[in-house]
């Protein structure tokens, strides 16, 4: 029942051409050591599934920048110009979904549903090629569930069974992604003994997790630090 592994061990699960799902939102909550390892192993032709394509040198963005992906199923690529350029050049296929629809498609895969019915996007070009269902006089799009060969997530704490706790807004897509991988790998900043996590605070039960690897903490500067350093305006969401 001890799922703690080394980075090298879990990297064997991630092969050329596989569908790789990742947690994180603008890079925050994307597991850095795993991305680093995938990069160094030289994995290519990935189908990436996640909220966004990060920043050029943050989060999953590094794999995009290095040309390791051939397809991205995502809601936003604006913060990574390399994704946009590759899309124009035809080397990266991009499938856009509304963010909330994407989250629920991933969750649907994670909880073993075939898909969901959403009215977001009805009456827009997102309808094209999609099945529709009418319920009580309202039209819904049929959105199939998403799963992946491997899912990678970042947790602040994990125990050897794979129970996970996240850190603040680093949670984002991680609990959804954790359920949707055929194999799920969690990178945890801290690995604690079995029984030391509060059962009420565990967000991802360990049953969904196949391996836990130790993280090395945040190893890059964040987008806002870069902007702050270059004197750009800080943009708070606050009151």
């Amino acid at each position, binding site marked *: 029942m001890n799922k703690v592994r080394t980075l090298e061990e879990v990297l064997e699960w991630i092969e050329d051409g596989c569908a790789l799902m990742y947690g994180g*939102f*603008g*890079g*925050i*909550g994307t597991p850095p050591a795993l991305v680093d390892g995938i990069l160094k192993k030289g994995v290519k032709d990935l189908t990436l599934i996640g*909220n*966004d394509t990060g*920043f050029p040198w943050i989060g999953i963005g590094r794999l995009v920048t290095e040309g390791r992906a051939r397809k991205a199923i*995502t*809601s*936003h*690529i*604006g*913060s990574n110009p390399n994704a*946009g*350029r590759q*899309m*124009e050049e035809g080397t990266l296929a*991009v499938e*856009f*979904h*509304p*963010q*909330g*629809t994407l*989250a*629920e498609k991933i*969750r649907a895969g994670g909880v073993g549903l075939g898909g969901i019915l959403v*009215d*977001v*996007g009805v*009456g*827009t*070009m*997102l309808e094209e090629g999609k099945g529709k269902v009418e319920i009580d006089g309202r039209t819904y799009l049929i959105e199939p569930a998403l799963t992946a060969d491997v899912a990678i997530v970042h947790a*602040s704490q994990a125990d050897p069974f794979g129970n996970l706790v*996240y*850190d*603040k*807004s*680093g*949670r*984002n*897509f*991680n*609990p*959804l992604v954790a359920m949707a991988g055929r194999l799920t790998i969690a990178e945890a900043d801290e690995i604690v003994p079995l029984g030391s996590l509060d059962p009420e605070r565990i*967000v991802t039960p360990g049953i969904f997790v196949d391996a836990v690897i130790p993280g090395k903490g*945040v190893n890059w500067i*964040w*987008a*806002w*630090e870069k902007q*702050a350093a270059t004197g750009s305006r*800080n*943009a*708070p*969401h*606050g*009151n």
Partner: protein
Amino acid sequence: MGMGEASRDRIAERAARELKDGMVVNLGIGIPTRVADFIPSGVRVVFHAENGILGAGPSPVPGEEDPFLCNAGGFPVTLAEGASYCDSAIAFAMIRRGCIDMTVLGALEVSQRGDLANWIVPGKRAAGIGGAMELAQKAKKVVAVMNHVNRDGEPKIRKRCALPLTARECVDLIITDMAVIAVTPEGLELREIMSPYTLEEVVSRTDAELRIPEPERIVYLP
């Protein structure tokens, strides 16, 4: 779009005056983000962020940033009293269930019936959709903020949107560098004109029917 800082701030300041005490609010990226800097005194709102924060607080003191506490734009925030974290699915549940009282979104075009286009220009590089579709379609009040005309000088308020839509009949209020225009069941209604523009300029740069109130009811903003 070549809009100056002052103009952007004026739009943000005007949008902030739509905030009412107790509202749950989601601010988009760009001008909408600045709305947080102009909240009227005495008004307390709850900020919602798509990455799973209900109750985001002000920016932290420099040096006190937490790398795991950021808003949907990726910028560091703090936490207000009574705030909570959730995953992105639940963050969007709040939007789809109509729990967001107001959102402020950037716009490429708005039609006279309130259709919003703000995510893609065919033939140009698309950044993606993000949370715009859910917010536009489901927030109780949608405020669209933008330049009145595009960089070619063409009206962005139109009878029909030429660009692919984000959502149909969703916008309630349009705030531009020239005017404030309400979308009502009877169509567009001019409410306010921003200095130094004239009524004639607003009308001529709007490609849609615009109901003009009695002259004395038009507010001229400084």
